[in-house]
């Protein structure tokens, strides 16, 4: 099970990085959405995926069965999902506003804050 998930995580990361390298802001956003999910899936897989064993310490044993899934990474992901979801919502609005204000979704043309032709500081006194 984990091996399959590991491959899926790899595919997710590849797709995310490929999309984020694009010039177009909407593709970058899609890349970020996939990246967030890739990380969550990575943490989930790292905590073992074993639905067969209950993560409850059995009677008469001091520790948890080693094959049981670790619940802590799942708690971490829950936090991370909420955070990445809210960030994505903000970023999508920001991208849309950028498209409205700058009339482009091509990051190469977003030069308002850093104009291509910048004056040099005065060279003489």
């Amino acid at each position, binding site marked *: 099970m984990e091996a399959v998930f590991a491959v899926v995580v790899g595919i997710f990361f590849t797709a995310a990085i490929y999309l984020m390298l694009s010039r177009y802001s909407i593709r970058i956003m899609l890349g970020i959405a996939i990246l967030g999910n890739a990380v969550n899936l990575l943490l989930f897989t790292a905590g073992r995926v074993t639905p067969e064993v209950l993560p409850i310490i059995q009677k008469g044993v001091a520790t948890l069965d080693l094959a049981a899934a670790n619940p802590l990474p799942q708690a*971490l992901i829950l936090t991370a999902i909420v*955070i990445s979801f809210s960030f994505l919502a903000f970023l999508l609005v*920001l991208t849309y506003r950028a498209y409205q204000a700058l009339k482009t979704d091509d990051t190469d043309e977003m030069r308002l*804050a850093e104009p291509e032709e910048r*004056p040099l*500081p005065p060279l003489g006194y």
Partner: protein
Amino acid sequence: MGHWLVISPIVLCIGLGALLLMLRNRTEWQAAVAIPGLVLLVLIDAALLYRVASDGAVTMVMGRWLPPFGIAFTVDIFGALMALTAAVVALAASFYSLSEITGSSRRYGFFPFLMLLLAGVSGAFLTGDVFNLYVWFEVLLISSFGLLILGSEPEQIDGALKYAVLNLIATTLFLVSVGYLYAVFGTLNMADIAVKVRAGDSNAPLMTLAGLFLLAFGMKAAAFPVNFWLPASYHTPRITVSALFAGLLTKVGIYALIRILVMLLPVERAGLGPLVTIIAIVTMLVGVMGALGANDIRRMLGYIVISGIGTMLAGVALGSVDGLSGTIFYALHSMVLMTALYLIAGQAAHLGGGFSLTVLGGLYRQNGWFAGLSLVLFFAISGLPPFSGFWPKVVLVKAAFAAGAWWLAAAILLVGFLTTIVFGRVFLLAYWRSAAASATAERMKWHATLPLLGLTLLVVGFGLFPEWLLRLTHAAALGLEQPTAYLQSVFPAAGGAQ
């Protein structure tokens, strides 16, 4: 075990943030709530520093879930020093905001975002749990987005988009590293990890992990080659916001880098040392070269922030107690000074009618006191005595020579020289050159004078009486190198070991 002082800066900030959010439309009340709140925050952080400096590290656990299971907040001298300086900087910036951020910008939520930003920053400095550190990073990141686009001008949206995407990728990388850290050690408590690392015998790929952390925090701190988001965005928001960001945000990255690499993964830090040395030197040079080529003084200051990050990384690269002590001193000095310099830039534009060096002129004749204040700060950033920039550079250069890294010492001195040229030119053009057509008949308001005077006094004080701060930063660096006190405060019964 539970000490309320540890958590109170964060509780105060979140509480005030929520209160101010409710007072969103009562713009005249907001400052009256926020500024006394920030004064209280400074007092609490000072009390915390006093306690930590006299009694050693303090730990507080949430809900009696004892470490390593519950989330622990552990404060040592390093964290308390950074938190106190952050609070002071925020107080100065909030005074300055009274003249700059009014009406609609306050309705957009300047003060609530400021409070939540401070909650994130204080939380990052005070927490003793790696995942909790990630959460505070996200808190400060989302509030910094809000501050960055205050005003919704097209330049701000352009800058914010680049800032937001790159910083979000950096925190996501941090989250990946946290996941791997948990997979290796089975714990997220910093003290517990430090114990397990020092116990050794781990075949885990810790070097890769340290590299990931270096990339993630390097991106947050704007170290070369992942520094380009900073000059793209820091000149777009209101000057108060730029000043806050320059004072607080990149330093949180440096703090986290030191905390993780030096305290948790010392062996791997030593292995990465040569790489960090190169990054430090290139960051310093790239920063100062960018500053030499910039015409807009806000952009110039953005590059100077980057150059300062390079100087701080020099101490991380050395890793000795002296080097780290220099880095911590430099970080404190840089927090105060960069905020002050951005406020100076704001006032220069207020008096001279623009941010561009081609336009500014005649500031010396217009207001001699302001020129004198600026000159003190320019000397301090160049590292000239008797101001605050001098001592950390002395400590760093000495530590570099002690480690035999003469090229690092040479780079620090060269960058100091180039910075002197940068600011000498600013003084020549903007202050001494005869007045430009754009000069206004404006006067400085007390909201602007007061924080500038306060920060300058701190800069002069750090420079004239460095002994107590040197002692504190030395103790802080020692506490990172040998975190016995830190461990003992988290695991009191076991005498520092689990």
